[in-house]
């Protein structure tokens, strides 16, 4: 506590200011913690308040009383299950397409065209710069009729939207392993390119691919503009349309979709962790 006493008091009492040996960091520590707490609460409020408002609104009836009616009414609402399963199908197709396109591409660029990484960095960031409305209008104008008639046109466009996140995840994953040496080791042992990809590259890219998958699913389940302009009733479009009929139910669906997405992502991550544990425990499997 000596350091908290004003210096003048020391000089008056002892005549000379003694050397303070306490660690200067220990004096600053409470202030850092204090700011940490403030920042934590501010950031937490920023994310949690809208969620709290949404949840509270979901559990209210028109009279403003607590009620489960909005939750209970969801399954019976017209178009909900179609919209829900369409979004899931689009998420699955988009994820598969993105991985099939980007894993070999990113691997090839890392191995054979390392100078192209900067170009790819730039190209994959374009979907963030170009507004989705411009992208979908262009695609709708150029796509053949049979493709425009299919909801999977959206998956093709979502692949482009997912590029910035997917490429960066994979790029980080590939940079974290000694890809060139692993591939050369596999090839010198007789591994063909496909075997090398399946047995060596993909298992070591699992974390990056998982992260890319999570981001892609989250993106597809939340995308509204393109689906709306392509006139497909995906979950976000249905929520928007239904909110004009019953805002409580629409909000309840959006809350559940948010929680559902979290649960899905948690499930994927935990599955990966348990597989990693199994792999480590597995003995003698060749």
């Amino acid at each position, binding site marked *: 506590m000596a350091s908290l006493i004003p210096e003048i008091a020391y000089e008056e009492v002892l005549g000379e200011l003694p050397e303070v040996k306490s660690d200067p960091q220990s004096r600053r520590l409470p202030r850092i913690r204090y700011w940490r707490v403030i920042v934590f609460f501010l950031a937490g409020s920023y994310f949690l308040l809208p969620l709290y408002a949404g949840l509270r609104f979901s559990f209210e009836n028109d009279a403003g009383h607590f009620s489960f009616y909005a939750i209970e009414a969801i399954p019976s609402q017209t178009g909900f299950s179609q919209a829900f399963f369409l979004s899931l199908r689009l998420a699955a197709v988009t994820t598969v397409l993105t991985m099939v396109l980007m894993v070999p591409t990113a691997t090839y660029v890392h191995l054979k065209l390392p100078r192209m990484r900067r170009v790819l960095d730039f190209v994959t960031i374009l979907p963030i710069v170009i507004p989705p409305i411009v992208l979908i209008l262009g695609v709708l104008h150029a796509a053949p009729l049979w493709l425009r008639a299919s909801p999977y046109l959206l998956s093709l466009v979502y692949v482009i939207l997912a590029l910035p996140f997917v490429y960066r995840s994979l790029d980080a994953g590939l940079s974290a392993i*000694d890809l060139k*040496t692993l591939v*050369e080791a*596999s*090839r*010198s042992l*007789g591994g063909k390119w496909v075997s090398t990809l399946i047995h060596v590259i993909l*298992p*070591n890219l699992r974390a990056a691919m998982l992260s890319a998958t999570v981001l892609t699913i989250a993106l597809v389940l939340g995308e509204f503009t393109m689906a709306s302009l392509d006139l497909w009733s995906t979950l976000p479009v249905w929520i928007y349309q239904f909110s004009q009929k019953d805002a409580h139910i629409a909000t309840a669906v959006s809350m559940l979709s948010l929680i559902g997405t979290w649960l899905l992502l948690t499930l994927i991550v935990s599955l990966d962790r348990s597989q990693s544990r199994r792999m480590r425990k597995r003995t*003698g499997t060749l």
Partner: protein
Amino acid sequence: MTVTEEKQSVLGTATRFGPSGGAPVELEGLVRTFGQTRALDHFSLSIEPGEFVALLGPSGCGKTTALRVLAGFERIDRGRVFVDGQDLSQVSAQSRDMGMVFQSYSLFPNMNALNNVAYGLRMRGHRTQSRRIKANQLLELVGLADQALKYPHQMSGGQQQRVALARALAIEPRVLLLDEPLSALDAKVRADLREEIRSLQQRLAITTVFVTHDQEEALSMADRVCVMSAGRNEQTATPAALYARPATAFVAEFVGVSTRVPAERTDDEVVVFGQRCLVRSADTASTLGLVDALLRPEDVAIELDPTAKDFVIHMSFFGATTRLVVQVDELPVRVDVRSDVAEEIELGTRVRLKVISRDVLIAPRAGDVLSSPT
């Protein structure tokens, strides 16, 4: 298990597993250019079956490129690669039948040691049971049978390189390629593994090409050493011949320690320190007149002479010998003397230098500078 029992067990395993019988290797006029840089400049080398050849040279001399060309990881602009009489110049890496151990740890992180060793066998379609048996034998061979179920991140660097060696040997390769496999290890592990690799190679009689920039490693392990410079084969010879009879000034200066001393050549003789010596017949420098003589510390002897103008400026104790640095006309010349003789010498002692080698290697004059490390 005692050390003897352990050695016998390993030897027994080696006998069960090998010898694989090495294949002859012939590299003919290899040329490889990267942009403006010629990494291999008409590089040629013949390797006998079962021979251990080290490619030695400074950074950027092309030794790793030569190894990668042999492995099939690098294309060549010109030249041909023969293994066992078969032209492999256009054959892909996975079909070349060569085991390789890399400088960086190259074990597959997602597989345990056993699966790493078995990987090559799996790629060759061996059955699970035979893969398991052979992988275990090889792990036993490198002394890591008890580490079979460990993942790379659970093993030390030395253990990882041993597993990598077992993995390379598992496919019974025609040629074993070692790309500076010891450079990432600490000195003690490096020395142990160096002996193990050499011992295994001799027992399995497998043709081996070993890339290193460490001359001690090359000279102590290899049957023959190929010294490379600027993509060319400067000299390929046994370690003893390379040290004692370097063919060029580069080899003399790169392998061991040499001091350039100004000299004057007349026909077959050269005058060094006022003394007439024979010019080494292998010498390629045809220059007459002022040249440099390349002297190893053991090529020179000293005589104590208080009237001499040369004097000792530095002394380093190396055990049985002591290295003196003698100032000769502004030029420091290194001389090895027996340590008991060195006891009579101190800094500033006046000495006279005398060439005691049978002949002297000469090179075109490059200035009065020390041109090799101590």
